[in-house]
């Protein structure tokens, strides 16, 4: 296992190409941002559903608060155009 990693590392270090090409890195960035947004929405969503269960009027507010972290992904999308 260790040898395999060593070989891989030498290969990566010796090749002139970057290990992660720019477009792949951008895709990763967006993906990680989406992951973060999803994690944030988990908590907010749970709380929002709780509030809505007690009081139907909270639906609109709950929905807005739940999708707020989605802005993270939108901002991360900028990376795609920068690359």
């Amino acid at each position, binding site marked *: 296992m260790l040898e395999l990693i060593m070989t891989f590392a030498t290969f990566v270090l010796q090749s002139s190409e970057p290990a992660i090409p720019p477009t792949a890195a951008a895709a990763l960035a967006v993906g990680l941002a989406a992951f973060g947004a999803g994690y944030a929405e988990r*908590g907010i969503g*749970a*709380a*929002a*559903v*709780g*509030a809505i*269960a007690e*009081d139907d009027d909270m639906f609109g507010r709950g929905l807005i608060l739940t999708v707020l972290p989605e802005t993270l992904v939108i901002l991360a999308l900028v990376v795609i155009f920068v690359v």
Partner: protein
Amino acid sequence: MSIQNQGGSNYEYVTARVRSRRARLFDEDDYRKLTRMGTGEIARFMEESEYETEMNALGSRHSGGDLIEYALNRNLAANFEDLLRWADGRLYDYTARYLRKFDAWNVKTTLRGIYSDAERGEVEDDFIRAGELGEARLNRLLDAASMEEAIEALRGTMFHGPLTAALEIYEEHGELVPLENAVDRGFYGRLLEGLPEEPDRATELYIEFLRAEIDFRNLRNAFRLAYSGADIDPADYYIDGGRLFDEGDLRQLASNPDELAARVRDSPYGEDLDAALDGLERAEGLVGFENALDAALLEYSDQLSNRYPLSVCPVLGYVLAKEREVDNIRAVARGREAGLGEDEISEELVIL
């Protein structure tokens, strides 16, 4: 119901629901209105509030103070049952720990019912079905005709062991006290069992609260014994696990109210209870002191639930506030029935 100790806790969901319910409890204005009403009006007021379902369900069978009392109990049970249904993981464990006190209440009610040969229906009305004992077990308890049967029905619960031990003493003396003590011991013995070794700050505070609950129970017993002057060995009522007294202290202090008060003043609770102790020394009676104990607890739990929003604290704050609300409305209704004046009733209320 089994103890669900696996998986994560869903603090966000439970906290949101609990806070919403906490906000809908009666506030000071409502109480001011309530203290001016007769029992009939209180019943109507409750029908238009959170208690609607219970009032409608019981309205045909009971009336007056009884109707209000039973509706309150049922609503309390329904609300706390909800808490247990929502909560997962450790949160469930923490919540159930405290709510098991209603199991203790139900068991005590049954034993008292058997002792006094009460009708099955009467005992059932007094049940608060908020704890962990399921419907089937409670029914078996209700069906029990003798102490032995009732205790047998509790096999596998935390009450079975202590009750079996106390049964002999009961049969010797024919007194209910040892059995009731056994129930309390069963409950308080489990209260602090199996808590995490290195809790986070919020959980630590919760454990501290449970400990305070034991202390306050001991304190109440001590003050009652001290003021009633009854010739009972206080050690019989002593509950282990608090940080205020040990068994010997209690025996010594119960015979001397002044020393007892001084002891409490020096304790960690002294600051919160200072005013209450002053009142007690001016001989304003035990009721004021006990209410001050409750108010101090309530205020503290409110503070905690703001400081640690994603913990067991908001749930605890709600449970306490709901209990106080039920106690308050009951006090108003019973007070009205007994013909007490507005001021006298307000003294009985615990309002923040």
